């Protein structure tokens, strides 16, 4: 390669800037994801750069990350790998892969361009079982938070996962039927109320998706059957299968937490120097392969 390359060899100032930086890219779905990754992997900022897919010539939607990765590699000539949430499979209606408990089968979803995270969303990596008592303690509406509330946070989180697993067939059917449940829908409903509302919802809005309901119900049974007995391990296991944002809303409501409480988990993780190991492995491998 020549010692110098004219700016004429680039299509845009964005491309010039990226080549001037000279760092391989980790392409993510949105700005929140970029913030989380930059926070977790701050000490790797000199080896990789985290970029939102929309910044690399890709629009929105679940295909934006692979599109941006291909654009980065083929058009910009910058090495890139994408990381997407497991919920991409929800958006693609890949129910059997989404709810598989077989890790070997799940690995099949990874491609050369995109790594699919095992947990539902990036925020799920914040919900470390050992952080939950401290989290409730600092974010409860009632300060000081009762000890029982703090110590019961893990149990509460697992129970809320159970409730959302019960509702999973309804949400899957709604998605298949192109009915979008509002983001906060059901956050304040009890486990029983959530079940009855979902049944009502099936009848009212999601009729005709019985096949999806039956398939996902069966998959959820298998998920439950393979759940670890240990409560902490069970939470981590369930975080693969439940909608993280709904879980956080339900936890906020049940535990009496202040709004957007999950950002405090980011701080607690930083306090402990914890990085999600699964994501660290992907980022490190890319940095080792292409970083300076």
């Amino acid at each position, binding site marked *: 390669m020549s010692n110098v390359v*004219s700016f004429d060899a*680039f299509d845009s100032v964005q491309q010039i800037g990226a*080549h001037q930086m000279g760092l391989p890219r980790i392409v993510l779905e949105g700005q929140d994801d970029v913030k989380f990754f930059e926070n977790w992997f701050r000490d790797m900022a000199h080896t990789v750069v985290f970029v939102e897919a929309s910044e690399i010539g890709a629009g929105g939607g679940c295909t934006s990350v692979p599109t941006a990765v291909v654009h980065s590699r083929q058009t910009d000539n910058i090495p890139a790998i994408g990381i997407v949430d497991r919920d991409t499979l929800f958006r693609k209606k890949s129910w059997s892969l989404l709810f598989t408990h077989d890790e070997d089968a799940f690995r099949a979803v990874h491609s050369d361009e995109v790594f699919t995270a095992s947990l539902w969303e990036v925020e799920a990596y914040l919900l470390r079982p050992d952080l939950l008592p401290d989290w409730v303690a600092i974010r409860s509406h009632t300060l000081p938070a009762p000890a029982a509330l703090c110590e019961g946070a893990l149990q509460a989180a697992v129970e809320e996962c159970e409730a959302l697993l019960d509702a999973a067939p309804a949400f899957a059917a709604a998605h298949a039927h192109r009915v979008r449940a509002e983001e906060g829908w059901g956050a304040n409903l009890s486990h029983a109320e959530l079940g009855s509302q979902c049944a009502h919802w099936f009848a009212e809005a999601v009729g005709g998706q019985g096949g999806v309901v039956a398939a996902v119900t069966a998959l959820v049974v298998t998920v439950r059957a393979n759940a670890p007995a240990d409560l902490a391990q069970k939470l981590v296991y369930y975080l693969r299968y439940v909608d993280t944002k709904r879980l956080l809303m339900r936890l906020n409501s049940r535990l009496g937490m202040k709004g957007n409480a999950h950002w405090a988990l980011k701080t607690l993780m930083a306090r402990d120097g914890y990085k999600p190991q699964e994501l660290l492995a992907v980022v490190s491998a890319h940095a080792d392969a292409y970083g300076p």
Partner: protein
Amino acid sequence: MTSVLRPTRFNPLGLILADMGPLRGLTEIKLTDASGRPTNLYLIMGPNGAGKTTVLEAIHLAYSLLDGRNCASFGQDDLDRGNGGVQFDALVALDDGSRSRLHLLSIVLGDPGLLKRWTPDELALVDAAKQIILHFARAPGIGAIGRTQGCDSEAIAFAEAILERADDPPRTLFESANGYPTVLYFPSDRGIRRPPEVDRSITRPKGLGYRAAHRFDIDGTSWESSLDNLFVWFAWLADGREDLCRELVNQLVFRNGKTLGAIDRQRLLVPVEVNGAAHRLDQLSSGERQFVQFVVRVASHMTGSTLVLIDETEQHLHVVMRRRLINLIRQWAKDYEGVSFVMTSHQTESMRLLAPKIEEPGLVKGGCLVKPRFAAPHV
């Protein structure tokens, strides 16, 4: 006696380096746009240690050899060892008193000699009549660096015109009527320090007269070369340059309540006035010192064929001052035909402000990345 061909226009077109510093092999930098027009804004970016400064040093060296007939050494290891080579190409209009002709002048340094012979088509593209060569190398036996036997007569006549004009003092700021080439080099170790107190007197500033090459590193190591002395000298001449210089600094650099005051004729210094008090120039912040030096030196030393080299362009500058400096450079490139800038930078934002992909009236823009880690899309 050697005839003299006076330069009336001098546009840098490019640089070729052979095994210079970190730039091994042949490295070609075209200071032209895609259609062959000389750029007046050229940005060099790249990682530390890639060779950006080597490029600027080589250009400065090519100009500086025009300031004398002989010198003891190139002052650059690869050239002095006989391994490295430089070819600096410029389009020069040479006037013999009755007519002017455009030539492609190649200033060649080092033992490898000419690194590129321009083809007739390439010469036609820039309207040059022919390529003329001015080759500097170590003379066999003598040991000094000087012009070789292979120099073209027109190139020698040009070089003699440069020497003939040496030390001719500029009459105004921004003296664009003079087409003689000059390079104003601001290396990264630039700034202003406190001049020695003992030597202060009204002294003709060292380096104010015409030279092909100026290097502005630390101003103030001697009284004669200090900015204070320059202001004092302009005040003594009473030709308006002192007022104009202060006005430039006050308008372009100081917008935070500071003012460059009138010369203190007792102490022979130019005071920086702020909040009713005053301090010396060298007591400004690093960024302010560098910005003041840049504004005053360019205004005072430029000719109508000036190449301004700035290494680490925005060093020490707050983002607002960085943007102000980049905008000033853009404005001067537009305002003064014949003045061009070659800058190095690590700041992507500066590149965005210079907008190399956008055509703008009065600006011809270009740039390059030195040793990028990944292959460019269209190489």
